[in-house]
């Protein structure tokens, strides 16, 4: 069990070796967004926290030394404009960066294998184009983009694939979608991410990633 999830824990390490093919798409785009944000967040944190801690020390109340505050006016329009404009540029940059990454993460490649996915309390049904149906187990070929077309039979569910770092809600009366592609074979787990009652935490589906030949054989069996 632990082995199966180890990949989620090494997100930072896997993205550091960006030349290698990632375990799954679109996890690489998410890692990129995560790293950009984390870098900026740490810098902004220090820009606020360091001066604040310094002022708390430098201007602390001390008997006989610093008993009354300075009476000078310290208004500075220049500073105020600076800390309005710079954050504005930073967040617009982040939103634009997100926009470009998100369109890759959202829009499935045209050659994707489409699997109709239906959520119900508390399992998942997968319908393949060939007419084959499985429950709570999704078998997919390695190296091929998969598009899940999601809907629900009862309440709202959501399918999250930790290894591919993507998710979407399954809403009754609507068809939503997500896509992913595994580049290595193995067994992975997906979790339901929208609260759906008593057994919400048990609503998992196994994702079996197999070679194209094994997949063809499996889909044509029976």
């Amino acid at each position, binding site marked *: *069990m*632990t082995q199966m*999830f180890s990949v*989620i824990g090494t997100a930072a390490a896997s993205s550091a070796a960006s030349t290698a093919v990632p375990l799954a798409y679109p996890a690489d785009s998410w890692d990129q967004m*995560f790293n950009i*944000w984390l870098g900026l*967040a740490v810098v*902004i*944190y220090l820009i*606020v926290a360091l*001066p*604040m801690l310094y*002022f*708390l020390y430098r*201007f*602390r109340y001390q008997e006989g030394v*610093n*008993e009354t*505050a*300075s*009476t000078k006016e*310290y208004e*500075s329009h220049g*500073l*105020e404009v600076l*800390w*309005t404009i710079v*954050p504005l540029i930073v*967040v*617009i940059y*982040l*939103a634009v*960066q*997100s*926009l470009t*990454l998100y369109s890759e*993460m*959202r829009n499935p490649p045209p050659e994707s294998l489409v699997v109709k996915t239906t959520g119900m309390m508390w399992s998942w049904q997968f319908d393949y184009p060939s007419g084959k149906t499985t429950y709570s187990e999704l078998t997919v070929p390695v190296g091929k983009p998969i598009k899940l077309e999601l809907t629900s039979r*009862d*309440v*709202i569910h*959501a399918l*999250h694939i*930790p290894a591919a*770092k*993507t*998710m*979407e*809600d399954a*809403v*009754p*009366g*609507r068809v939503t979608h997500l896509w992913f592609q595994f580049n290595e074979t193995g067994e992975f*787990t997906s*979790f339901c*991410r929208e*609260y759906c*009652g008593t057994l919400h*935490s*048990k609503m998992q589906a196994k994702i079996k990633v197999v070679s194209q030949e094994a997949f063809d054989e499996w889909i044509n069996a029976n």
Partner: protein
Amino acid sequence: MQETVANPWFRASFREWIFTTDHKKIAILYGMTSLLFFSVAGLMGMAIRLELNQPGVQYLDPDLYNYLLTGHGAVMLLWWAIAFWGAFSNFLIPIMIGARDVAFPRLNQLSYWFFFSASILVLITLIPSQQIKMMWTGYPPFVLHDTAGPTGLYVLIVILIAGSTLGTGVNFITTVLRFRAKGITLGKTNLIIHGLISSIVVQLVGVPAFVGAVVMLFLDKYIGTGFFDANTGGDPVLYQHLFWFYSHPAVYVMILPAFGVFSEVLSTMSKRPIFGRTSMIYAIWAIALLGFLVWAHHMFTSGMPQWLRIFMSFTTVLIAVPTGIKVFNWVGTLYGGAIRLNTAMLFTLGGIFMFLIGGLTGIPLALPAFDINVHDSAFIVGHFHYVLGMAMTLGAFSGVYFWYPKITGRMYPERWGKISFWLILVGANLLYFAMMMVGIEGMPRRYVDYPEIDYWVTLNQISSVGAVFLAVGVGVTFYAWFKGLSGPEAGRNPWGSPSLEWTVSSPPPPQNFDSFPVEVADDWSPYKYH
């Protein structure tokens, strides 16, 4: 009702507490009710942490766990993060603007008793057959399902709360617009008044959408209409739009008053006027206004059209700008001060640091490319506990410590206050930082059980240890407030603040001011320390 205000609040008889229209007594009623429910919801949170301490289902049946989650969320938000500011509004606003009471004292009384009635109904959910298990968000179609619990009770509670909110809303907006003493312009009033009033305006505008949404839930479940039921042509996503149209701005209802406390305490304890005061006021109102244009970031994975996701992503990140202005101005306020690190100040500084982390972890949630992997994960839960849980609570505690001498006439024990602060700060950071990390690692929220993955277990156990520190810290603060009642006399103005509430005796007399109308000098400012 002259007789009901004849005594200062702490000497009032039981009958006076029931029939009072005095804003200070009503403030105490709000505060006490709120603290009681805060404690109950806190214990629910502890039970949740106990269950999550190890994988598997050990102590709580999943349905009971779901009830506790629902209760913890709904009560913490409605009875603590929103209602506790009702105590602040009631106690401070009339005194700070030089008024004898609010504009409509009787309506104020009615608002409290609506709130009290809702409180009784919430207690009914403790009965096993009446447990609401739909989460505080109450998403259909799950709510229409039998296992969700009594939807009607939930709807009735929301309606009573809304009645209270709307009454308070018109009352305090009128009070601030019409009852200010001569010379106290809107630009000169304390920043906490802008914080409280902006949050009240947001409630007045947003709550009707929320009430509309839950009434439609009620009709769907009991009358058989089909607003949210896909089987009869409805759309469950419609509910989410209506719900978040208020419930996103509601987070500013909870945090803007805390910003007000931060400003008051920071300025008073460093003896420096607020840096960039005008831009602070604009920032508060910009946040309140922008708050209404961003709700769909709660729905990035709900199946909305792509253009709406992009649009709401851009509006959401813009909120970082006025919030950033406030944080930088707080840092600027410290410059050149004579800073006293007493309990009230420590809680404010802690609140700002918690808000900083909460804000920086909030930015990526505005980015669909990031949200797509952490939506409905423990990361979100950690993030909003930094902002709404801790920044709000530390702000509220700071406010109580700061105005404690004014409210009770006594001084709280500094030593216990400081011990409490450090316990809360360490505990909360262990608890919520570990929670965000386990969310990044993929752990979903609202799970009673989780697979046995080593670092999920470790991070959950760190969270649970933090929760114990946090709970003990809160307990120590309650002890400090209790012990302070027999503390030394505080006097009129222990902090040396020129703000109006410090010019009256402690606790304030029934009519607030000895002479009326209140007059202030031409160059008066609540932050003029020299």
